[in-house]
């Protein structure tokens, strides 16, 4: 019971990482394809403005998941990290390049620097979710056995299911970002910008749907166990995700940005939970269950207490952060200070 709770909390963190940091990654992808430095300027400015204050907080969800995994399920952490260390190293390098370059670009004023750091930020925003997706694919398709580096260091992530995971992660991030950015553009970007992101959101949404359809065939052939879980126990979640995904596209076409945002986020969240439900109670194939992989109850309880107390501090703080930057800044406060 304790172990299941810790797993659920960790999965909640994974969902938050997908929904928040995923959108930041996707924004990087749109930054990459925004066009030349003159044509792409308004889009890049909007992206920078939207993710600047929040990306670091969003990024922490990853650390949260990693720490929950090693505290709650140390054997699983060791097995995943040691077997999949190649894609994880590449993802880690992508994380470095992305975060650092984003901060550097904000701090630089010359065009060539902004281009260099911008390209670095945008490219790594695509590379990182791809490799994280291959990791998810490797675990979900049962290629990470328990033990230190017990799986193949190569085929554990160079395989159809991992490739599907990588592509799906990139496309989903792109879709989330575009949908979120529609609302941001509507608030202060002008009609051209809104239309641009509306088009992108629709295209990426359709692409995500197409990848998911192809994915059904891939999983059927490559990961029968996961396929069985997704088409049986987790089927309601999968269907609901598809429905909300389609509904999101309809809402997008009707320019209902807030609702489209909710629908897109829901579709992604449902897929994350569908994966969890399809695999439960198995953490690692062939036979490592949640109960067997879990740390002793003393540790699980302590971790949960830390999380509960942390949530009391974090939820209002996060709420304030998002609220503060979801409304237009007036500059009045600082102006008052300066004229004194």
């Amino acid at each position, binding site marked *: 019971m304790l172990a299941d709770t810790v797993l659920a909390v960790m999965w909640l963190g994974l969902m938050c990482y997908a929904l928040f940091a995923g959108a930041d990654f996707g924004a990087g992808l749109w930054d990459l394809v925004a066009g030349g430095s003159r044509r792409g300027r308004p889009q890049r400015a909007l992206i920078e403005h939207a993710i600047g204050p929040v990306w670091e907080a969003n990024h922490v969800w990853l650390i949260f998941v990693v720490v929950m995994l090693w505290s709650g399920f140390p054997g699983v952490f060791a097995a995943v990290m040691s077997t999949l260390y190649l894609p994880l190293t590449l993802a880690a390098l992508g994380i*470095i390049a992305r975060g650092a370059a984003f901060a550097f670009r904000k701090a630089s004023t010359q065009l060539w620097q902004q281009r260099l750091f911008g390209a670095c930020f945008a490219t790594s925003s695509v590379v990182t979710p791809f490799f994280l997706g291959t990791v998810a694919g490797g675990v979900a398709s049962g290629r990470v056995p328990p033990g230190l580096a017990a*799986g193949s260091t190569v085929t554990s992530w160079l395989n159809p299911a991992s490739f599907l995971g990588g592509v799906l992660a990139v496309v989903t991030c792109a879709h989330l970002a575009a949908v979120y950015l529609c609302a941001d553009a509507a608030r202060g970007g002008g009609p051209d910008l809104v239309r641009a992101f509306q088009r992108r959101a629709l295209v990426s949404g359709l692409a995500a749907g197409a990848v998911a359809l192809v994915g059904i065939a891939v999983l059927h052939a490559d990961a029968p166990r996961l396929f069985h879980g997704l088409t049986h126990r987790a089927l309601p979640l999968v269907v609901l995700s598809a429905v909300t995904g389609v509904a999101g596209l309809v809402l997008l076409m009707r320019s209902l940005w807030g609702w489209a945002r909710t629908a897109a986020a829901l579709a992604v969240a449902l897929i994350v939970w569908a994966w969890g439900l399809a695999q439960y109670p198995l953490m690692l194939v062939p036979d490592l269950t949640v109960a067997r992989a879990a740390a*002793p109850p003393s540790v699980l309880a302590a971790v949960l207490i830390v999380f509960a107390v942390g949530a009391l501090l974090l939820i209002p703080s996060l709420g304030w952060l998002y609220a503060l930057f979801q409304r237009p800044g007036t500059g009045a406060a600082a102006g008052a200070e300066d004229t004194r």
Partner: protein
Amino acid sequence: MPAVDQHPWPQAAAAVRDWLAGPATSGDLAAARAQMGFSLAWHIVVACLGVGLPLLTLIAEWWGVRTGDPSYRLLARRWARAMGVLFAVGAVSGTILSFEMGLLWPGLMGRYGQVIGVPFAIEGIAFFIEAIFLGIYLYAWDRLPPRVHMLTALPIIIAGVASAFFVVCANAWMNQPRGFTVRHGRVVDVDPLAAMFNPASPPQTVHMILAALMVASFLTASVYAVSLLRGRNDRYHRAGFFIPFVLGAVVSPVQLVVGDWIARFVADFQPVKLAAMEGVFTTSSHVPLTVGGIAGDHGLKGGLEIPNGLSLLVGFSPSTVVEGLNQVPPAQRPPITGTHLAFDLMVLGGLFLIGLGVWLLLAWWRTRRRGESDPLARRGTRLFLWLASFSGPAAVVSLECGWVVTEEGRQPWVVQGVLSVRDAVNPAPGLMTGLWLVLVVYAAMTVATVYVLRRLAGERPVPVAPQEADVTGYPVV
């Protein structure tokens, strides 16, 4: 290496694997240690700035709001911009470390991740709070009234210190493992609180937090010492020098006392580490304190010896017995020369910083006595500023050396007496490739960080929201 895979890719897989690396070798252990050491050494400096710089920035902002002096407000904004960049690189280099714990040391994490999970979980929460309020502090400069804005710096400072505390608790556990039992090869009876608050936690955390304040203070001060030396002797640069330097000068002597505390602790709890630090080969009384020197077969060679010095330091009496390296078999002894020289260099750096603080105190006292107003107008100021411009690098060298002492002095153990590095390392092949990749990326990141920080220092006007180059409506200067 057992390949568990049912799919028809073995040939391609083997080709890729051969291209990346052969089977795991002992060179891979060295590579893993080098990679961990390198990325930690990098992160630790940025993390120290992350602990200290928010405090300095808040002091400057508070003083600026109180006095209305634009110099201080300009300083606060400059430091806030630097903080934004440093926090970003600190956040990502810290994430890499959490990855590397598993990528490089799955043998440690797979068994003991649960034991030290709680301090890391709390650190994660603290880091989260830091990131949230940093976002608010950096970006809401023009969205919040000045007083509220200053209050948003407090959670950053508190969470920064808390992060340092809990992370160092986890490191302290590696020196003094507590809170678990190994029964039939399994880790049982885990008590996360006992693990977190192990005997090494108090001295190590205090030592580290003070070190972080020193590094942030002196690094910032040395930047402005250089400006003052170049003749930019105005309010702005003087404030930029004095705020951090005074903080650093106040902390340094306290650090001396804490340093003594932690050395005594090591003598009691990790005698082999102390023996390596001080180069004590055989257990005896009347042990001299040896400064410098290189390990020979039976003792340190070429060092300066102070008779009975170490016995006096450890037990206040020449007849105090100090345990030597001969307490453990040769295979369990840490590298002596490196640990000893790092320890001496750390102490030397600390004494240099204390000396600088005393110098400024004397200069200030003399100017007061003569009714003058400016301690920097005295003779010898140039020499003082010249030395002070090295205070930042000296603090960093001391920091790195202190960390080398902690980690090298524990070798060959990753968890003292419980788990060796050899048993902790990832058995997968190709760690050497990872090391080269990481080295290249960190080198690029270092160059870019230094370059961007230098550019930020010269930029005018400073935008009102420090991270928003496009908000130029409310410049200070």
